[in-house]
């Protein structure tokens, strides 16, 4: 194979055209990268195919009843996952709201010269470590620390402000709020770590230019740094949301797993991932079909939420560009 770059040059020159070897390596590497992408796609296709294949009989048998029903009664063959869909979205939304606000402010706090660099690095490592704590530990922490801690506040909110639907019921123990709080703590490390990288990735010059224009510290952060890192921060939220939607054990321990649809933050709820994990090990063939159906729904929700987020992102970018 001949290199297309063959041009006679002075062999002593610092500038060399790529050799044939360089050319081959280049093409091979590019081909490998393409294979990598194809593998990712193939994996998702294989997954959807595998899940879809097992879900198909359930979809044919039950159709939309599964999506719209709110009763899960194996004995009567009634499988409704509407409460689980509702609980999944509700808990993930609250968790993302909390973790997004705190995670991004933590990322700003750790990257924008509020702390000495060394200290920030230590803090950052600690936050990243929290991503490794097993789900079960978060679940136990939620039961023994979070629920007792919020019980007095929730009781007060329920008695004083019970007319607001969010505080409509009393907290028995496990419920939507404790689950969402623990979920927020669980996804905070992901959001904080990835947003931090996005913020540190903004070239120094950009910030210096902003200061040169006479901006205050905060004007530089909010008007220059955060918008420059916006795609990265958005990416962190996507990862966080993904984990929130798919999280199982901690939620199973804290959410109460009741097929309720309620606006109340204190009522027990249910989520799709918990429903799957809890019922799968003992499920009979009929139930597995429906569980696989539920899994497809969960994947579809993740996709839908991501598409919505990407559109929002594009819209926001257009806004700043003017």
């Amino acid at each position, binding site marked *: 194979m001949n290199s297309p770059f063959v041009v006679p040059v002075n062999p002593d020159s610092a500038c060399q055209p790529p050799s044939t070897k360089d050319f081959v390596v280049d093409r091979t590497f590019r081909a490998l990268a393409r294979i990598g992408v194809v593998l990712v796609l193939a994996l998702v296709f294989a997954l959807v195919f595998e899940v879809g294949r097992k879900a198909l009989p359930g979809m044919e048998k039950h159709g939309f009843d599964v999506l719209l029903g709110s*009763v*899960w*009664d*194996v*004995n*009567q063959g*009634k499988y409704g996952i509407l409460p689980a869909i509702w609980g999944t979205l509700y808990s993930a939304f609250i968790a993302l709201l909390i973790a997004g606000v705190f995670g991004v402010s933590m990322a700003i706090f750790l990257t924008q010269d509020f702390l000495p660099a060394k200290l920030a690095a230590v803090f950052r490592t600690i936050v990243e470590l929290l991503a490794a704590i097993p789900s079960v530990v978060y*679940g*136990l922490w939620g*039961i*023994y620390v979070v*629920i*007792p801690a919020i019980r007095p506040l929730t009781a007060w909110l329920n008695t004083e402000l019970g007319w607001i639907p969010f505080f409509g*019921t*009393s907290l*028995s*123990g*496990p419920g939507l709020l404790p689950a969402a709080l623990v979920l927020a703590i669980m996804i905070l490390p992901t959001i904080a770590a990835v947003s931090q990288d996005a913020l540190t990735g903004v070239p120094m010059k950009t910030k210096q230019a902003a200061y040169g224009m006479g901006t205050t510290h905060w004007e530089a952060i909010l008007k220059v740094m955060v918008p420059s890192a916006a795609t990265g921060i958005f990416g962190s939220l996507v990862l966080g949301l993904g984990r929130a939607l798919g999280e199982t*054990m901690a939620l*199973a*321990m804290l959410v*109460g*797993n*009741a*097929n*309720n649809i*309620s606006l*109340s933050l*204190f*009522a*027990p709820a249910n989520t799709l991932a*918990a429903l799957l*994990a*809890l*019922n*799968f*090990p*003992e*499920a*009979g063939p009929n*139930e597995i079909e429906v569980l696989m159906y539920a899994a497809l729904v969960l994947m579809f929700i993740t996709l839908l939420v991501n598409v919505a987020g990407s559109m929002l992102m594009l819209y926001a970018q257009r806004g700043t560009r003017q």
Partner: protein
Amino acid sequence: MKSLMKSAALAVAVSLSATSVFAAESIRLTGSGASFPAPIYLTWFKDFSKKSAGVTVDYQSKGSGAGVQDFLNKTVDFAASDSAMKDEDIAKVAEGVQLLPMTAGEIVLAYNLPGNPKGLKLPRDVYSDIFLGKITKWNDPKIVAANPDLKLSDTPITVVVRADSSGTTAVFTKHLAAINPAFKDALGEGNTVNWPATDKFIKSPKNDGVTATVRQTPGAIGYIEYGFAKLAKVDFAQLQNKAGHYVVPNAESGAEALAAVKMPESLVAWLPDPDGAKSYPITSYTWMIFRKDNGNPAKAKAMREMVEYSLTEGQKIADSMGYIPLPASVVEQVRKASANIQ
């Protein structure tokens, strides 16, 4: 017994020279299934593996249903199940299936009341109505009538049930359906049932999830396995049995219940509501599932030895771990049937 002593002595010798590798082919048995008997199975298998050279037994608790599924997919050598095995599943196994009851357990009602009163007594209609969501306060006249000595406040009853699909739920609901027709009509029985949808019914995963939630929630009541409750030191109620007596769950009352039912040829016996004045009302066997034709004589032999160990040495520790030893007649039946594992 003598041979066992001998093999034990041999095992000591082997473990002393642990570095020397045995020339004999090592056999590894893999099992999965029910989580309820997992603690005792793991103890048995570890001890058995230590005592029999070249045989190691691995067991993982992942649920009876998953265990049976593994068994059907042939990814394990044996399975364990709280709910035996369905006939249609048995029909799928060309090699033939041998079910062996290995131990039994009770299900207790753990509670958490302000002031930690001990010795709560619950009549049959009361505890079934609590799990139907019909009795919702601790000072309900029916509870007060059964417990004149206890101070009961108007705390709402928070009912904690299993969130995961479980053999424990199956045994518990089988019993409730047997004693209360209303329960049978409304909820039925099974690994999961459709518990009343109120905000006072909380679902938690596994025994520990239910136990933790009961502990952390004043006014809570939940069903867990006796062995777990005993070791976790939670308060549990005395239940009224078929004969009308209040019975404390323990090894004796469980053994009484087992003795009240005759083990059939299939080795699958259910005790939804046992007779007998001293019988604890919620008691059940749990099974190991083997293939009759394993196509591997060495493995089959190891399995038979494993069963033999469980029937002899194994039963001795059952009581201390919160399980009920098999009645002697049942041990004999199981031993005879274990010869079918070839």
